[in-house]
């Protein structure tokens, strides 16, 4: 075992690498076959595949280094996600000092608690202390115009971009709770979740991201009936059902990297994929309301960080708490 990578994870990464090699070859063949034609979809596909390579390799490298690197990675992603969120959120000029707390101080404490494996503090910092503190700071700034909207907007930025996303690396600590109980896990040593915890996190990430990919593929090929036409015409029932079922099957097939039986893995994958779909739907509503297509242009072909993490930010907290509730004592 090097870092958090053991032989099981090596197999998983070889599998992911294989899929990406296959996707790259297929895209290259399509590119060659359709050369000279208008192929913006194909260009986007190539950009997406290239970005997937970078994301997969980046995650592999951080796992090689260890849990601290993974936590720092997600702190960075939270920061970038906040930046995108605040770009489109209509905050007031008078919110500036509240936003300084939101961006520089609260996320760092949140991820620090996570790094300390201090679950009790991690779980309440944002929903209790930060959610009460931020409107207080805002009230002290003295601007009451649209106060409720501004307070809600700032809390939501924190909820989605920081609290929800930080549940992804929090999954790495679940095996400690599963094997030694919740109390023993409190304040346990860094990396005590080991390769098993890292694999559990990868299980969620792989299943939910593949669910996004297959929803796109099924939607593009068979999609006719939009789920919520006023929010996003691209999210169809055909894409939703096809994508979620495909990814659930993959999740069931990945039971061997988790502590679950195949049907437990399938159920958790199903719930995660559905939450992921709703995450995308909610983020699309926000984008539509603000009149933007993407949260940014950070990842070529994909849009912004939040465009890629929207589904994970909704599925990770639910996945974490379902596992914690049913599998730990």
């Amino acid at each position, binding site marked *: 075992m090097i870092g958090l990578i053991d032989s099981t994870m090596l197999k998983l990464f070889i599998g992911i690498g294989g899929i990406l090699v296959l996707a790259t070859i297929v895209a290259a063949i399509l590119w060659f076959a359709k050369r000279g034609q208008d192929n913006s979809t194909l260009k986007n596909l190539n950009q997406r595949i290239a970005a997937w390579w970078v994301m997969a390799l980046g995650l592999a490298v951080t796992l090689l280094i260890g849990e601290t690197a993974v936590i720092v990675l997600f702190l960075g992603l939270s*920061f970038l996600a*906040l*930046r*995108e969120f605040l770009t*489109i959120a*209509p905050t007031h000029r008078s919110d*500036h000092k509240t936003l300084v707390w939101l961006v520089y101080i609260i996320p760092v404490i949140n991820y620090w608690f996570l790094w300390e494996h201090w679950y009790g503090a991690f779980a309440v910092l944002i929903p209790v202390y930060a959610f009460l503190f931020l409107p207080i700071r805002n009230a002290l700034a003295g*601007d009451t*115009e*649209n106060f409720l909207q501004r307070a809600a907007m700032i809390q939501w930025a924190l909820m989605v971009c920081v609290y929800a996303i930080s549940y992804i690396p929090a999954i790495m600590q679940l095996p400690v709770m599963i094997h030694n109980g919740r109390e023993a896990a409190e304040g346990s040593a860094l990396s005590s979740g080991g390769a098993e915890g890292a694999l559990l996190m990868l299980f969620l990430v792989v299943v939910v991201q593949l669910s996004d990919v297959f929803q796109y593929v099924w939607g593009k090929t068979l999609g006719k009936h939009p789920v919520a036409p006023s929010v996003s015409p691209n999210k169809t029932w055909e894409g939703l059902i096809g994508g979620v079922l495909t990814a659930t099957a993959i999740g069931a097939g990945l039971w061997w990297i988790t502590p679950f039986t195949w049907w437990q893995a399938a159920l958790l994958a199903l719930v995660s994929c559905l939450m992921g779909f709703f995450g995308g739907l909610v983020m699309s509503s926000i984008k539509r309301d603000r009149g933007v297509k993407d949260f940014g242009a950070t990842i070529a072909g994909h849009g912004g960080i939040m465009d890629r993490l929207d589904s994970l930010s909704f599925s990770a907290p639910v996945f974490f708490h379902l596992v914690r509730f049913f599998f730990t004592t």
Partner: protein
Amino acid sequence: MNVKQLLKRGLSGLITTASGARVRAEGTDGEAPDFPPQAIYFANHSSHLDFVTLWAIMPAELQPKVRPIAAADYWGSGLKQSVAEGIFNAHLVHRYKDRAHTPADARPTRQTDSGSSPKTSQLTGMTDILDAGDSLIIFPEGTRGPGDQVATFQAGLYRLAQHAPEVPVVPVTLKNLSRILPKGETIPVPRLSQVIVHQPLFVDDDESQEHFLSRARGVLADELATDAQGETA
């Protein structure tokens, strides 16, 4: 490329990353703009980040020949002055309102509808820069505004354009920088900004000051009015 240039490239990269600046030519979805070898760049002004960002987006080979104009009352002392002049190659000017009274002030100057007319001496340094073949970055509003509007322009832009009619006057719209670092704040809040480089303007032979300034200001005001990202007050 020597060490100093390398450091400046690194700093430019750092600034554009920090301000999340997306630079694009007017009317495109992200195409890189053309930067003429010599130009008078002018932009809307709402943040201390404005001139730093404009400096940072310049191509490496042009950067040493671009002179941002900065106010001496803010940038003209101590460390800030060394940073402004040493790194950003800034030319510091004393704004009319806080400049020591000089004999030139006693002479009557033409006042226009486009705002106060700066005294000629303030412009001399800038025309020297143009005569030397270098480019200028100026903020014709004269002071930082709230970010979603453009104030009336001071006459300096017209005078400079008239002084060197062959040099293109390039409008640059800066979006969202005021939301990153508004007037009166010291800690920037991260947001993505946009830098839109427009088609160059030239002053016509018989064009009046008022007409040219409102044409120039209009380019920035129109761009700011499109997809405004929701900042109020």
